[in-house]
């Protein structure tokens, strides 16, 4: 489960962009502020200027100047009148003087005066005017007589002033006009500037408004989206099939969906706000739960949170504790963390698993029981068969009459058939259990076919059938595969064909289907013109226990297992088998199998086993409890011509082994008191003359477990009972011709196997290879010490693997004990074997290290 939170819950990646935005906003605000400030300043200025304009005595100034001129004129006029009729007008003269005086005075003081004196001509004119006034004021203030006499002079002086005053007035016009213009322009400019700034401000504010509006719209949209998401999420949570529980930092339940109510039994009202420990966490978990939450909040260590699915138990409202699968995630919010738990009630699943496990164990038990039964059965059946066939074999060599010979042959055949059936059953179970292994050796196709024909000729002739075999021209002869199995299948098909054909022909053909440089897929064909197989039957013909006539009047015989075995074998070889048939006209059975072509490099030198008859001082010890079997072996060994001695049970066998040296010990496995395994062990672990002798086990138990047991005990190989004459002689030959066995006890290691390995990998590499195996072994041993109850399968697999490796090194003892570990079947069984494994491992490590020269360094 990924730990990525919902992308919508993630912190906005535009947060960095938000930083830019913040700066931009600050800038904008600053800009607007600046504009506003400028506007205010300008506005204030403008208002001030307008104020000033209003209170500016500009027009007044103009008026003052013209007034002076006017009063001057009036004064002059009065003076002229006075010259003509003096007396009654003196008061007017005085009045006019005063008026004129006050007019001139305006030029001197006040702001108005200031404004007027700004004119260039004002000061000089003022000086002149003041001079005039000063000159004549005493006359005005004096008696009438003096005044009267002064009048002409006054008039003259005044006239002289007129042009100056006029000029001043005219100047004033221009001056004040310009001033006014300038002032107006200034105000105009100021207004424009203020207006412009105001305009910018308006634009800025409008943009701000637009942006803000857009922002608002965006926020509204986001808001809507968030609400939509919220709705989506809440409906998702609400409609979830599995409980979803949300809790806060304190462990209090915040949200509890419908499914949770169904599973736990609490309604949301009952549980929201209460801590989880008080409700759904089982009592014995409560401490751990609290501790875990606290730890997470303090240190952020996640044991449960965001660690994927975990299994634990929870408590229903009813008090029932039940198993759950839970997944918790933590979501960081602004100031707190919330936990979201997805829970699944797995009580059903757990129960189902338990039922399945029980059923599986029962099935395994049944299977094991079956295997055991079959093993026992085969032994039980094979032992007497051994006797029968052995005896018949012997009988053949005792000089029989023709009739007796025939009887013996018939009996032998029957026995062989019986053996064949027993073998079939065992084969089938082996193949089905996946325990059959195909051999891989070179063989001749021609020879194989010849054998098949030879095997079945008699039966064919017995039913007046012809039997032919044909190999296509492009089929190579030398192959690598399992010839025995191929022969078994082929022979089976042929014998079937013979069974269901009378006065007909059976033809075997071999053709190439596909071919490459090294590989070829061959098609083996067995065609007969017998009674054929009805169509509905064809489908089932390869199933177990299916024969053409299953009724009580069975003509053809057979257990119905043959084709089933053929199918298993063919599929094991990697091929396919099929049938074509027309009732009345015959049947065609064919199968394909891929094989490797034997080339010169793959060819192994064929050791032509010479026919039996070994001479020399070859001594054999036979350890067999069954009298008949013992007799059989005795006779066979006599026929071969080797010295032999007998022991009737394991103990005697051990005793005899201690007394004198033998070249070969034939050790029966199942014997009362001390069985062959124990006896072999004792012989091997002892220091007698036979500690290193080749011991061959004779057993009816053909399975690999048995073989492992035997190897572990110290046997070199085993032969399946009933042992046939040819086989026995071949074995003896083998033993006699191979290198003499090592006198030293190699204990846990099969020296020859190890030497073979060393030859293959080379002296330089053997050390590394052994070291690696020892390391593997030590690791396995470490794990074995800590083995816990749960994973039996895993142990079985590991043990099997290691046993394989051990076999390569010839560590047969280790191999054997590992095999027992593998098939222990239960934790208890494994624990029982464990000490032996430890011992064997220890011994083997030391021996291997020693023998590979590792300890010399």
């Amino acid at each position: 489960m990924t730990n990525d939170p919902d992308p919508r819950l993630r912190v906005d990646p535009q947060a960095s962009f938000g930083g830019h935005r913040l700066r931009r906003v600050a800038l904008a605000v600053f800009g607007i502020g600046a504009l506003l400030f400028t506007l205010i300043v300008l506005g204030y200025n403008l208002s001030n200027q307008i104020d000033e304009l209003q209170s500016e005595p500009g027009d007044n100034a103009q008026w003052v100047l013209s007034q002076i001129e006017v009063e001057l004129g009036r004064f002059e006029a009065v003076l002229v009148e006075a010259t003509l009729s003096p007396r009654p007008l003196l008061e007017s003269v005085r009045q006019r003087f005063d008026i004129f005086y006050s007019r001139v005075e305006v030029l001197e003081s006040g702001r108005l005066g200031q404004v007027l004196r700004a004119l260039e001509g004002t000061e000089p004119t003022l000086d002149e005017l003041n001079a005039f006034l000063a000159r004549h004021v005493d006359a005005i203030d004096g008696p009438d007589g003096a005044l009267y006499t002064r009048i002409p002079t006054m008039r003259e002086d005044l006239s002289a002033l007129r042009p100056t005053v006029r000029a001043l007035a005219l100047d004033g016009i221009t001056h004040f006009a310009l001033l006014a213009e300038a002032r107006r322009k200034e105000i105009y400019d100021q207004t424009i500037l203020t207006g412009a700034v105001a305009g910018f401000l308006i634009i800025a504010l409008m943009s701000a408004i637009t942006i803000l509006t857009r922002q608002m719209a965006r926020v509204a949209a986001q808001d809507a989206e968030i609400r939509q998401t919220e709705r989506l999420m809440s409906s998702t949570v609400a409609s979830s099939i599995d409980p979803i529980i949300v809790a806060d930092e304190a462990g209090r339940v915040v949200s509890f969906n419908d499914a949770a109510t169904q599973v736990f039994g609490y309604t949301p009202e009952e549980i929201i706000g209460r801590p989880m420990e008080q409700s759904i966490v089982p009592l014995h978990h409560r401490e751990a739960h609290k501790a875990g939450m606290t730890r997470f909040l303090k240190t952020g260590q996640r044991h449960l949170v965001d660690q994927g699915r975990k299994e634990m138990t929870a408590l229903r409202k009813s008090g029932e504790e039940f198993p759950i699968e839970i997944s918790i995630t933590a979501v960081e919010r602004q100031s707190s963390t919330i936990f979201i738990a997805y829970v699944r009630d797995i009580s059903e699943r757990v129960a189902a698993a338990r039922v399945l496990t029980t059923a599986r164990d029962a099935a395994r038990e049944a299977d094991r029981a079956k295997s055991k039964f079959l093993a026992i059965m085969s032994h039980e059946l094979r032992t007497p068969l051994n006797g029968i066939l052995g005896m018949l074999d012997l009988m053949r060599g005792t000089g029989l009459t023709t009739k007796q010979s025939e009887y013996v042959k018939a009996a032998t055949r029957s026995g062989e058939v019986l053996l064949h059936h027993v073998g079939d059953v065992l084969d089938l179970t082996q193949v089905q259990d996946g325990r059959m292994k195909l051999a891989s050796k070179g063989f001749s196709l021609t020879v194989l076919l010849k054998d098949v024909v030879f095997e079945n000729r008699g039966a064919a002739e017995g039913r007046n059938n012809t039997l032919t075999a044909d190999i296509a021209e492009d089929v190579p002869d030398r192959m690598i595969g399992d010839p025995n199995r191929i022969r078994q299948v082929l022979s089976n098909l042929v014998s079937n064909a013979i069974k269901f054909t009378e006065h007909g022909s059976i033809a075997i053909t071999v053709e190439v289907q596909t071919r490459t440089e090294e590989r070829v897929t061959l098609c083996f064909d067995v065609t007969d013109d017998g009674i054929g197989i009805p169509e509905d039957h064809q489908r089932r013909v390869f199933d177990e226990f299916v024969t053409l006539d299953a009724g009580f009047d069975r003509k053809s015989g057979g257990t119905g297992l043959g084709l089933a075995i053929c199918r298993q074998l063919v599929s094991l070889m990697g091929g396919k088998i099929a049938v074509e048939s027309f009732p009345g006209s015959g049947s065609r059975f064919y199968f394909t199998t891929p094989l490797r072509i034997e080339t010169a490099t793959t060819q192994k030198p064929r050791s032509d086993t010479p026919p039996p008859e070994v001479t020399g001082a070859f001594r054999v010890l036979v350890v067999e409890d069954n009298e008949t079997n013992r007799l059989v072996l005795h006779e066979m060994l006599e026929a071969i011509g080797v010295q032999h001695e007998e022991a009737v049970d394991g103990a005697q066998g051990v005793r005899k082994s201690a007394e004198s040296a033998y070249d070969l010990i034939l050790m029966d496995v199942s014997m009362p008191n001390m069985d062959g395994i124990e006896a072999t062990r004792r012989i091997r672990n002892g220091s007698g003359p036979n500690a290193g002798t080749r011991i061959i086990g004779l057993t009816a138990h053909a399975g690999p477990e048995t073989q492992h047991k035997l190897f572990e005990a110290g046997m070199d190989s085993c032969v399946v009972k009933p042992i046939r004459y040819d086989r026995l002689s071949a074995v003896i030959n083998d033993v006699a011709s191979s290198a003499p066995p090592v006198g030293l006890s190699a204990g846990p290691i099969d020296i020859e196997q190890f030497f073979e390995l060393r030859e293959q990998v080379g002296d330089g590499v053997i050390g590394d290879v052994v070291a690696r195996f020892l390391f593997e072994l030590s690791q396995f041993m470490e794990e074995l010490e800590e083995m816990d109850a749960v994973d039996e399968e895993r142990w079985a697999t590991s043990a099997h693997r290691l046993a394989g490796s051990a076999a390569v090194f010839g560590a047969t003892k280790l191999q054997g004990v590992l095999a027992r570990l593998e098939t222990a079947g239960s934790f208890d069984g494994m624990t029982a074997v464990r000490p032996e494994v430890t011992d064997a491992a220890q011994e083997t490590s030391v021996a291997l290290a020693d023998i590979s020269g590792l300890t010399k360094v």
Partner: protein
Amino acid sequence: MWIGTGHIVKTLGRQIRQGVATVLLLGMASQGASAEPLPAPADEVLLTVRGVLGVTNGDGMARFDRAMLETLPQQTVETSTIWTEGVNTFRGVSLKTLLDALQTEGTHIRATALNDYSVTIPFSDAVEGGPILATRLNEKTLSKRSKGPIWIVYPYDSRAEYRTETIYARSIWQLDRIEILDQ
């Protein structure tokens, strides 16, 4: 010597008349509407008021000399003006007081100066804290050579509205006569 005697008589007479006028005027002013005639001026007439008057002193006009003007309740205005330097104190009867005393009815007055300069002032200007007919500048009599004897002075500093061209135009000096108008 005869000049001096005449002068003394004139002065005495003036003072007596001033006294009477004062009493009458004060009475008149405090009583508000009364049909009593205005006392006649004893001295040189500074101000002549024409128009629809409730109070007159001859020929349907009201004539005031300095004493009469200065007996009426006086107002002081401390202000700077465009014609003077710094802040000065002006004293005189307020326009409102005068118009009230005269019991006039009208809408405007036409104020005319010695040199026939004339300006129209609406009754609405005659308010408390409004213009005064200033006769003294810093307690000194306002002389004819210096915008006297009567100068209508507004308290320019007190309000921005008083610092306009219009008001400056109404600030008539050498005030001589007033005509009550009803438009």
